[in-house]
């Protein structure tokens, strides 16, 4: 499987995503012959044949205005939007999630954490659905442990949107203990077409026991299954 990792000038988890996909996933024993990851520069429009585009964490363009507010105007995002419209897999993590809500690929918005402080720590979360290319390999009820690291991760939307998301089974992840005040404990949501995921926790930072958890690999493995089924 081929991952494309978008690099905005202020992306700082681009390497983490690249390493998780091409090394920790890519070198797993028993997979179908290795997975690759390639960087996609924000001023380019070529997705280089990616099966899944990752919008990594960081501060895209500094985020002094509003997280992700400038990123939505970048050339690469025009290409990503077309890719998503055609059913392509788009995976936004942390700042990537913020960008996806800013450019309208996902509903809702991420506001300042309850308590107003940046929070970095391991959290526990559960997949709220198995019916998605990002969660199909996660056994129901499994608690996953992975870090969060954000100042603006409080998922917020109006009641009707939240009801719709629930009715359409589009909540991908929920926190077991809500760290940031997100409405209805939401940690990640899916697009209507289920091919776009945004989540605040960092699965790419939890892909080997050496750094504390390998639970994030389940998300990557789900993508591999979805991709091989589609082919």
């Amino acid at each position: 499987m081929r991952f494309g990792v978008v690099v905005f000038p202020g992306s700082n988890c681009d390497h983490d995503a690249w390493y998780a996909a091409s090394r920790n996933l890519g070198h797993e024993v028993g997979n179908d012959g290795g997975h690759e990851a390639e960087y996609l520069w924000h001023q380019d429009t070529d997705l280089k044949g990616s099966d899944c585009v990752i919008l990594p964490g960081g501060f895209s363009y500094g985020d002094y205005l509003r997280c992700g507010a400038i990123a939505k105007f970048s050339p690469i995002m025009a290409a990503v939007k077309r890719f998503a419209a055609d059913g392509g897999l788009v995976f936004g993590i942390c700042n990537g999630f913020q960008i996806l809500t800013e450019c309208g690929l996902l509903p809702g918005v991420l506001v300042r954490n309850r308590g107003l402080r940046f929070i970095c720590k391991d959290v526990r979360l559960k997949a709220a659905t198995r019916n998605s290319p990002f969660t199909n390999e996660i056994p129901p009820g499994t608690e996953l442990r992975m870090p969060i690291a954000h100042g603006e991760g409080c998922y917020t939307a109006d009641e009707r949107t939240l009801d719709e998301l629930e009715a359409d089974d589009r909540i991908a992840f929920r926190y077991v203990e809500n760290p940031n005040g997100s409405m209805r404990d939401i940690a990640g949501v899916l697009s209507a077409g289920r091919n776009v995921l945004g989540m605040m926790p960092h699965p790419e930072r939890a892909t080997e026991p050496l750094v504390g958890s390998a639970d994030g690999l389940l998300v990557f493995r789900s993508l591999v299954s979805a991709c091989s089924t589609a082919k």
Partner: protein
Amino acid sequence: MNEVTPEVVQAHQLTPDEYQRIVAILGREPNLTELGIFSVMWSEHCSYKSSRLHLKKLPTKGPRVVCGPGENAGILDIGDGWCIAFKIESHNHPSFIEPFQGAATGVGGILRDIFTMGARPIAVMDALRFGPLDDPRNGARNQRIVSGVVEGIAHYGNCFGVPTVGGECVFEPSYNGNPLVNVFALGVFKRDQIFYGQATGTGNPVIYVGAKTGRDGIHGASMASAEFTEESKQKRPNVQVGDPFMEKLLMEACIEAMATGAVSGIQDMGAAGLTCSTCEMGSRGGTGIEIDLALVPQRETGMTPYEIMLSESQERMLLVAHAGREQEVLDVFKKWGLDAVIVGRVNDDGKMRVRNHGEIVAEIPSRELADEAPLYNRPYTTPLRTVPLEAPAFQSKNLRADLLTLAASGDLCDKSWIWHQYDYTVRTNTIAGPGLDAAIVRIKETGTSIAMSLDGNGRQCYLDPRLGAKLLVAECCRNLACVGATPIGTTNNLNFGNPERPEIMAQLVEAIEGIAEACEFFDAPITGGNVSLYNETLGDPIFPSPVLGIVGTVKTGLPPGISYRAAGRDIVLIGGVGEADEVRMGGTQYAKQVLQQMWGLPPLIDLPFEKRVQDAVREIVNEGLAESAHDVSQGGLAWALAEGTFQNGIGASIQLDSALRPELLLYHEGPSRVIVSTANLAQVTAICARHGVPAPVIGQTGSARLTIENSGETLIQVSVSEIRQIWSTALESALHAETHA
């Protein structure tokens, strides 16, 4: 003040002697711009004029040392063709005046020192000192400073994308008017990718890159070289404003530009800005640099040459390209959306020549300016001390309550309120993060990880600067041993008061000599650091506060951690209970938190014995025999035992057999002791015996309580959940407590 009068010279904090030296170097009177340039380069902050003579005593050589003091950062070879660059730097004065920006730009400055050498920063740690949060007079202000400093560090490091993996934080009245913010950073690169801050090759273009120059931070270096007075707060405009996003772009662009092969030398503009980078690069290269200020990108209009040369605007670098290849460099910076302008050339007459629209506004020999600053052998007597040598009579009313007092104290309580604000997992290299004895980051490209320990203890250094400093070095090395690492090098930040006072100068001299002796002994040469003097407010000096950052290497793998992991394991006290007497209790946390007094001397240390303890622990950890390993330091044995229970909620039952009186047995802070829990007692004992180190089994893990007995008498019994609750909530409640203004 365009004329250089004696008043103007004095306002620049230059003495009449120093002024005469300037006249001798130039062969004429300086103009105002030149005077300003000399004043920052010859400030204490930039020239180390009071400390240089003594810094020469530090050991700086070793088989792994690629680059010692004098460059932007020290470099050590870690094998397999890889190197690390690391250094610590203070931003004390700015952080007091404007906590958020002061601390943020402290992080920015040290990160630039690392990537200017070609290394990508992979870890940051901070040593913080504040006045007490419940101080009746200054508590509210101290609370604001803590919040601001932590937020500033978080803001800069998190956005830049470097993990803040550890550090320490201490509260003392002596830091009420003078907090300390010392930031350590470490980067990694290949041995053949090192760049130095030197200008070589006559005619090579000099390129200014990064943020535009503004009026911020003018004379920051001089401000950092003076005592605080009531007027200091008016110096807020001297504090720079940081832009971590700009810094991130600058780092990526610099590393990419270096990879083209078109860069010959590079240096960041930190303290003393454009002045420092132009004269130091010339001096190191045996050349000079000629620039025209009209070409320098400027944020404001109407800036004078004086202001441009002395600005400390952040996120700027000066680099020298190979002539003919400048376009390659300019293209990289354009890609990252940064200003990059050729502002001058390298010359061969050794002069730093500054023009403004062609007209010469300053002309100074680089080497004399950079390296011929006055050197002072300041008089020193005996270290300042106002506390008694003799111990007061003391007896504990309740040893259990004492332990809970320690748990609730600012120094020993849980600091996760601080480090949860730092991104410590970015870059996915953090194997051991904040809150442990030592932090560990792995190098992905090799099988080696880097362990780091940052430590200071102003109290013990006040009681005896020489011995206190030795204890610090030993503790850092012991922390590294607890994660299986071998020390390879040291960076130091020497925070002291006014060196013009002989009793303060004596503190500095003795501390340096103590560090020198211990670093030599542990084979951990000093590769650089920072000296921060004049840490006094209204004549009140801080405790002598050397902070040491010692780094070590260890094979990549999971370390044991400090917490008991399973019930029924043997707890071994490697090194034994140690020796103590009342006089050597005076600098302990027990004396501070329980008795609220200070007296006496630090504990003694036997360096060869300490080394044997560390060797034994390192071997035990690396053989995988320890389920937990934690050194006994502040708070003593009882506190170290308690800390082992917090993470997993597994308690311990301890049976000691010592003739020491309980207060001493439980709370003395003698060195050379490590607590290990193990399922392999026989092997642990055998290793300790081979190293000639006592290793009594003092109890077993298990239950949900911590019980400590001595000779059959129960001294302390406490439930893990009770003490953990106190420990984990203390800092946040103190930060929000009402204080009496």
